[in-house]
């Protein structure tokens, strides 16, 4: 396979460092990814050369910053193939995107007795916003359950959808199990009953090519910091027909047309949903991250990460007492596991001291942990810069650590 991982690694100087005297192996990419020099340089360039507040003043600095900021909106539109740039809203992250839809869509469309279907494998950020707003409106959350292999039981969906169903919230890729959910099929089923679908794409866009029009998603959310950009920037894609019907989420500057104390009129989309000064530097640097993903090709990254996944999975499976959570046929580069008789926290704490960064705990997915009746898992998650050599060293470290704990 013609994937130059060493060239890609050269963009990430942070990966060359040692931690606790051992070479760093960063396998916590599902939590957040490292930033390439392209992103760091974009941040620096903006601060040094043309920083100004966007969309407001008529001076050089502001104009230049506005131009760059809006160019990123175009890049995002192309990246996920949205129909128009106005359907791209910048937020603080996937969590804020979910809260925006939950509050604003909820305000407009939820009534007492309404139902929102939420999958059992969701991250808390795609559960709690719906709960909060359901409570506010007297609506109810209905669970779409997960099977033992970590797949959504989508066959139940036609029964779960009723005339009360107002929306379905589902992750494209599970942050714990790595399962790639059949969102296109879920959306098709939902649309037959005129129910819109909110897709949490935080674990998807950096790993698999996403086309929101092909999926026919009503809403699609993701975060820059999981796709090699900075933290504090996220995207909400929403179909124009929904965004135009939804009331503003927050009030402030930028989102208004005219303000008087008697009456305020609001801007058009996307600005209606972008109150206040956004994360200008973060968004512009995000543009550099998208460029890197596009140049490398998400389909190439996807194929590389699949190789890593297969390679690591087969080695892990050979270990005694090891259980992998999430063995769906379609998976992204995320492996959650436990070893019989060993607490995941102990594994993670010791792996850390060998230079391996993995995540341990419940991964903000308590309902899923309850489903498997476990306190948590160890999760290794791969990114575009990881290598098979790193997996070899991870396996050596894991074996050593297990010996210490056994």
């Amino acid at each position, binding site marked *: 396979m013609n994937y130059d991982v060493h060239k890609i690694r050269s963009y990430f100087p942070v990966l060359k460092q040692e931690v*606790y005297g051992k070479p760093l192996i960063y396998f916590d990419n599902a939590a957040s990814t490292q930033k390439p020099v392209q992103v760091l340089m974009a941040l620096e360039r903006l601060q040094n050369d043309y920083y100004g507040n966007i969309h407001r003043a008529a001076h050089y600095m502001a104009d230049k910053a506005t131009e760059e900021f809006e160019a990123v909106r175009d890049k995002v539109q192309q990246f996920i193939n949205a129909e128009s740039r106005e359907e791209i809203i910048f937020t603080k992250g996937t969590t804020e995107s979910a809260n925006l839809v939950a509050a604003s869509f909820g305000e407009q469309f939820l009534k007492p007795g309404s139902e929102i279907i939420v999958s059992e494998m969701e991250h808390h950020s795609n559960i709690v916003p719906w709960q909060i707003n359901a409570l506010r409106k007297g609506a109810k959350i209905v669970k779409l359950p997960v099977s033992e292999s970590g797949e959504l039981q989508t066959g139940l969906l036609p029964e779960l959808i009723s005339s009360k169903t107002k929306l379905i919230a589902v992750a494209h890729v599970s942050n714990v199990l790595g399962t790639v959910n059949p969102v296109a099929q879920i959306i098709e089923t939902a649309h037959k009953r005129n129910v819109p679908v909110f897709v949490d794409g935080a674990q998807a866009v950096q790993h698999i090519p996403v086309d929101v029009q092909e999926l026919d998603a009503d809403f699609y959310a993701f975060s820059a910091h999981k796709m090699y950009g900075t933290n504090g920037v996220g995207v909400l894609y929403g179909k124009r027909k929904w965004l135009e019907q939804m009331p503003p989420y927050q009030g402030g500057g930028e989102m208004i047309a005219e303000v008087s104390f008697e009456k305020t009129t609001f801007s058009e989309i996307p600005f209606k949903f972008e109150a206040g000064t956004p994360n200008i530097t973060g968004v512009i640097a995000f543009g550099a991250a998208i460029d890197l993903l596009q140049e490398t090709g998400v389909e190439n990254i996807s194929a590389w990460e699949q190789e890593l996944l297969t390679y690591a999975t087969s080695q892990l499976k050979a270990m005694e007492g090891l259980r992998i959570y999430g063995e769906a046929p379609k998976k992204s580069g995320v492996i959650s596991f436990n070893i019989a008789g060993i*607490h995941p*926290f*102990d594994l993670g704490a010791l792996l850390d001291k*060998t230079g391996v960064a993995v995540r341990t*705990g419940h991964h903000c997915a308590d309902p899923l942990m309850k489903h498997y009746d476990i*306190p948590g898992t160890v999760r290794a998650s791969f990114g575009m810069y990881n290598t098979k050599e790193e997996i070899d060293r991870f396996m050596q470290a894991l074996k050593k650590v297990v010996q*210490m704990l056994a």
Partner: protein
Amino acid sequence: MTIEEVQQDIIEEFGVYQDWMDKYGYLIELGNELEPLDPKDKNDQNLIKGCQSRVWLVAEKENGQIHFRGESDAVIVKGLVALLLRVLSGRTPKEIMESSLHFIDDLGLKQHLSPTRANGLLAMVKQIRLYAVAYDRLEK
């Protein structure tokens, strides 16, 4: 021995380990040696819930001193619990209230006391102090 002296002792014991893995190896040893709690004491009332692992803490007062027993489901945390009990159990409320706990920091294990997403240890230290304050009030 005072609380300070026990802390110094622990720091000295760990001083022989240069490598992180050896340090943790010793913590694991301490964790494995910690006397397990009676299953009936591992109840919700004694549970200190952490995001990563769980800790149970039982306090009993005898002759003016508070005796603590504790356990965790993770062995490294158990090792840290063993150390905390060695420092703080069998003390008067006043001793506990006036103590400054620094050995975990000195050993380079501070990450295990981070306030969020932690393992219940920080909450355990707080709980020990709360017991001390409560018993102190009861005496007055």
